[in-house]
């Protein structure tokens, strides 16, 4: 068990690509931290630097009390689960799990005991004599997990471990990984570009963009108060609607609209509204009213998505609502928004403007 301390970490690939541009992050002992961000933002690079698979261009990396910048991957006491599982195809599942222990000079009895314990925990005992190619994707995933945990490392590193699984299995494995981590209390750093996976797994979420940290916080903090336009649109599905403040000033209806909009902090010129915060019925609190034309209605079982065009503009906007409201495409709809639901941003800086909400 150990914490991971990342200080000013940078990575410049040979050829001059700067993939990681100065990251500071502390992962506490036993914490589950998820790195999330769009493709190419440097998530894998950061994780691989922690693992020791990429050299560190600048900055310091501590695992536990040790500075590990120059240590080989094997000496860092970490285990990694790869996206393609990276199981040794010519070895049985047993040997796959035992390989790391053998290399570290464990006794045969101890190896057997540990491999069997891990196999039981992951329910893969039946597959121990098989080769990886005789397993399904989900089973391989479990073996990869098993290989990581038999060694009882100080930290687990995951690089998109679920992205090769189908949707259903992905949810199932996600839950299992979370349970397993809760039980073992091993410090974990997990990379994904799937924001749902990120939200559900993380104790703490790190949103990366273009080699830098955009925001760090618990998933709910980040969801409730995205620190930038980038985070606002990246976290949450469907994405947050961004509406120019000017539009609301001219077109926002309702008795309290003016007061409500003036309450927004100085410098706000763009307002973010989550698709769930546009209500079809007027709430009792002070609110804003927007008119729109329904362009597309999408029923998704328990919820529906309404793709509308705000009146007097070509601003596309999404609304998420429970159940299936009786609406028809082409119909004019009114939506009500309360002050709490308005996220103030500045277009120039791309940042959230400090507010009390």
């Amino acid at each position: 068990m150990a914490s991971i301390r990342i200080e000013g970490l940078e990575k410049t690939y040979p050829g001059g690509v700067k993939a990681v541009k100065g990251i500071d992050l502390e992962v506490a002992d036993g914490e589950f931290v998820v790195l999330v961000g769009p493709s190419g933002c440097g998530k894998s690079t950061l994780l691989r630097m922690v693992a020791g698979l990429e050299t560190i261009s600048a900055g310091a990396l501590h695992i536990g009390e040790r500075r590990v910048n120059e240590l080989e991957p094997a000496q860092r006491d970490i285990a990694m689960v790869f996206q393609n599982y990276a199981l040794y195809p010519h070895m049985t599942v047993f040997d796959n799990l035992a390989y790391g222990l053998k290399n570290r000079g464990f006794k045969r009895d101890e190896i057997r005991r540990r491999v069997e314990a891990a196999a039981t925990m992951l329910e893969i005992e039946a597959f121990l004599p098989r080769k990886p190619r005789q397993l399904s994707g989900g089973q391989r995933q479990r073996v990869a997990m098993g290989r990581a945990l038999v060694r009882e490392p100080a930290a687990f590193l995951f690089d998109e471990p679920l992205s090769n699984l189908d949707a259903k299995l992905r949810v199932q494995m996600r839950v299992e990984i979370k349970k397993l981590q809760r039980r073992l209390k091993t410090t974990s750093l997990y990379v994904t570009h799937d924001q749902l996976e990120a939200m559900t797994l993380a104790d703490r979420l790190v949103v990366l963009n273009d080699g830098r940290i955009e925001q760090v916080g618990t998933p709910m903090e980040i969801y409730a108060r995205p620190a930038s336009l980038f985070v606002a649109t990246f976290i949450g599905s469907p994405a947050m609607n961004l509406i120019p403040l000017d539009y609301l000033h001219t077109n926002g209806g309702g008795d309290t609209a003016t007061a409500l909009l003036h309450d927004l902090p100085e410098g706000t010129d763009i307002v973010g509204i989550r698709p769930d915060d546009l209500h079809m019925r007027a709430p009792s609190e002070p609110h804003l009213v927007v008119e729109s034309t329904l362009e597309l209605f999408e029923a998704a079982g328990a919820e529906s998505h309404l793709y509308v065009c705000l009146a007097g503009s070509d601003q596309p906007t999404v609304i998420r609502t429970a159940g299936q409201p009786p609406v028809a495409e082409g119909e004019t709809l009114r939506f009500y928004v309360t002050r709490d639901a308005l996220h103030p941003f500045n277009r120039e800086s791309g940042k959230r403007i400090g507010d009390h909400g």
Partner: protein
Amino acid sequence: MQTKRMTFPGRWLPYALLAPQVIVTLIFFIWPSLQALYMSLLREDAFGLNTSFVGLANFRRLFADTYYLDSLSVTAVFAIGTTLLSMSAALLLATTVNRMLRSRNGYTTLLVWPYAIAPAIAGVLWWFIFNPSIGIVPYVLEMLGYRWNHRTSGTDAMALVIIAAAWKQIAYNFLFFLAGLQSIPQSLIEAAAIDGAGPVKRFWTIVFPLLTPTTFFLMVVNVVYAMFDTFGVIHATTQGGPAQATNILVYKVYADGFVGLNLGSSAAQSVILMAIVVALTVVQFRFIERRVNY
């Protein structure tokens, strides 16, 4: 099951298109093979005036002939030596080149060039390098206290032909090994590194086992090469000598047939060679292709 099919008018076109390949095969492979098979059953007298049918006598005499049996073991040593040397050198080069990032293509191109050199020319090259009076290698060995002379020492001669034959094949093996290495996912190596295996251990426990299909394939190809495709190398360097020390089967076919003019025996030897090729091909397709997958 319906596949899209191109149709041509007339029945002669397919035959005409196939004809060149069929004719070449018939004239250069099938016909000589049949002739050899036929001749192996005949015996000509010393002046080529009289030919008689002798059945399997040529074969019987071959297996009673100590020279022939020696040649068999010489061939075995030569084939195994050449295969081992060319494959291990190629594997070493391929693993080294595989680590490079930028200069990889340049090295690959350079390393492939020897393959384009005719065996006879390669042989002459080695003849010069190893020439006991003017060659560079004997000169260096002399300084190290070894007196090299492949004209008198059978061991030296064998070493020379093995090196000369292996050298050319390295390029071919190298390409296959490099392709094999590149098809091993990098993440496997990384996983092994995290699992605490150093570079040498990674090579022997992960990389080498994963190369088995390539290794087996190349083994057969190299044995076939060493046994049948090295006439030029032998001819340009040792000509089977000294004292038959490098007289491998293919060379003996030539020496007995064209120099010794014992056509019946020579034909019988080529029939045996053909049988060996067939056997190796069967091994290749039947055994290896199926057995070596993990």
